[in-house]
């Protein structure tokens, strides 16, 4: 075979860098939506490469539910310092305090849905015209039809039936005042690709992804970490388990899996043998068959 071909990770990397540069060229005030999870960390890493030797030109926007893993926040602040980038925080607590949203009640209450309002408010008040996310099409069936450049109307909503066709690599980011776009540079990556890339590039990630001992309870088919926000029922038992997290969301709903994978290499091996999707451990997606689609239409990540 000729030496002039790219392997699949290089191909995905170049594609993502291309998307990021298009965003920079087509929008006035783009930001990266930074959750502290591995996907947004990979997106940030790719942004660094796309603009090297310039520093990363995007601010990082974090929607802070207040129900965070402390490790996530520390990781975020260290990264911001290293990149010398600007951090924009949208606070769900503030949205609750100002009456923009009401806290859910009950044992399965989460702040997940509340994030939508906070996110859209932060996008509007910071005049953001494109928010770059780490969404991948393999994550969930409603994402399978997502574009690289995804148009949102002036209510921040996604209309799956009225998406702009996207051909070749010609992205149309034209929009009217008040509308914004979401851009997904790693659309074509799978969970496995992300882990292989993290391993190859030796990208730092929060220690939560690696197996560690933690106090947890068994709920909704996964190990939910004990935290100050968790309401523990009488029939639920706190145990200490060696677990790791496959995705990081709110501490109240992110379930861990039992695992001994305490290095990236071991995670790569574990993920390749895995028989359940990563979102399978998130109770936010379990509410109905179309839970993700419904949230996406309203303006979710």
């Amino acid at each position, binding site marked *: 075979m000729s030496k002039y071909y790219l392997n699949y990770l290089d191909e995905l990397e*170049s594609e993502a860098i291309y998307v990021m540069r298009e965003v920079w060229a087509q929008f006035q005030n783009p930001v990266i939506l930074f959750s502290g999870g591995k996907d947004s960390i990979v997106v940030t890493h790719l942004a660094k490469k796309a603009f090297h030797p310039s520093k990363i030109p995007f601010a990082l926007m974090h929607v802070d539910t207040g129900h965070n893993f402390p490790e996530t926040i520390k990781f975020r602040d260290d990264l911001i310092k290293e990149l010398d980038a600007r951090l924009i925080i949208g606070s769900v607590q503030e949205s609750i305090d100002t009456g923009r949203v009401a806290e859910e009640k009950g044992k399965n209450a989460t702040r997940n849905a509340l994030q939508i309002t906070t996110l859209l408010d932060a996008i509007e008040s910071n005049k953001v015209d494109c928010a770059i996310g780490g969404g991948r099409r393999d994550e969930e069936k409603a994402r399978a039809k997502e574009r690289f450049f995804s148009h949102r109307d002036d209510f921040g909503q996604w209309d799956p039936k009225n998406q702009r066709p996207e*051909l070749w690599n010609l992205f149309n980011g034209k929009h009217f005042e008040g509308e914004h776009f979401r851009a997904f540079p790693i659309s074509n990556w799978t969970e496995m690709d992300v882990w292989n890339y993290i391993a190859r590039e030796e990208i730092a990630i929060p220690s939560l992804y690696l197996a560690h001992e933690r106090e947890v309870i068994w709920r909704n088919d996964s190990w939910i970490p004990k935290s100050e926000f968790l309401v523990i029922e009488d029939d639920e038992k706190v145990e200490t388990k060696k677990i790791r997290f496959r995705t990081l969301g709110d501490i109240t709903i992110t379930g861990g899996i039992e695992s001994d994978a305490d290095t990236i290499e071991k995670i790569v091996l574990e993920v390749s043998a895995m*028989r*359940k999707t990563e979102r*399978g451990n998130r109770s936010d997606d379990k509410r109905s068959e179309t839970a993700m689609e419904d949230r996406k239409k309203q303006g979710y990540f």
Partner: protein
Amino acid sequence: MSINNNQLLRFTTAGSVDDGKSTLIGRLLYDSKSIFEDQLEAITDTSKKKGHDGVDLALFTDGLRDEREQGITIDVAYRYFTTPKRKFIIADTPGHIQYTRNMVTGASTANAAIILVDARHGVIEQTKRHAFIASLLQIPHIIVCINKMDLVDFKEEAYDTILRQFEEFSSKLLITDVRFIPISALLGDNVVNRSENMPWYQGAPLLHTLETMHISSDLNKVDARFPVQTVLRPQREGFIDYRGYAGRISSGIFRIGDEITAMPSGFTSKIKSIQGPTGELPEAFASMSVAMTLEDDIDVGRGDMIVRSNNKPDASQDIEVMLCWLHNESAKPRAKYAIRHTSNEQTAMIKEIIYKIDINTLGRKMDDSSLNMNDISKVRIRTTKPLMVDSYRENRITGSIILIDENTNETVAAGMVV
């Protein structure tokens, strides 16, 4: 790890409703172990609710709620699977007559197209349409899967007839690599595993074909083209004079020292450095995202194209394209549109509709000057400033354009330079 040398193959699937496309994709994903347990449980439940016996693999590819309710696929959905040999991206497009635009979209980036034919029905109008679109979009490899072989007793004659029918009409199309595989998507014959029911078939099963077909020459390696996306000016310690032209190489190979011309200005220089995703490189080639610096301080910006001086594209304000209309609002005569070609954007006007393709007969209609959704027509376009184009046949990146309606900002058409 050896998997890290594996290539990425993008393919699209086309077939009429009920030819078994969803079943085939479900089968590929299932037999290659790309369906997770929780996804399988979900579709097993749904299959039961709908009263199917067994698991309906087709359900796995049904995306959004509206479709689940209507039971049809209405847009392009992307699926992923990886084998020890390759990573695959499937652009899953529906087969309805009215959805030419979806197939065109899915085909635009594909290395290969799978065209499904029902063994009982043979080549039908819809098959011809799909083959035509695949050739129009210059998909390098075509695999005709003759499905439901179980319903024709796995007989070789059924396969032979369809092969002959297909070759007969496709000789008029520009298709270079076409293969035929008899399969049963439902039972799995010749999808991942070789069929024991069809010993007369000597070729490889579908998955093996996809895993081994030669794709590294799908990209043009001859004509060096580098559309500039943005200019990097770090203006910080150590990089005060740095001016890097950032973009993704459309085609060809660039090396340090190459004599280049910036188009449309015509200024010339030499390549001083190439920054790839992993550091400085002596050379870079198609589909890599890089940043180049030049020996001379010439004026280059977004929309310009850096090319090797001894091999330039046409710079033209008048181009002929095969245009596929994508929007439900028809084209307005002599209206202005924004035209996007690589990183370049100009204003354009459709000056003349030369002919329209009759998608049923694949003949030309000379007297029809309307452009409606799903129409494919040859048109002449005039732009306000020159575009640096190659013919689509030679270059899928520098030979393609889209039109945008500036009143609505919608993408309304896609075109291939003739």
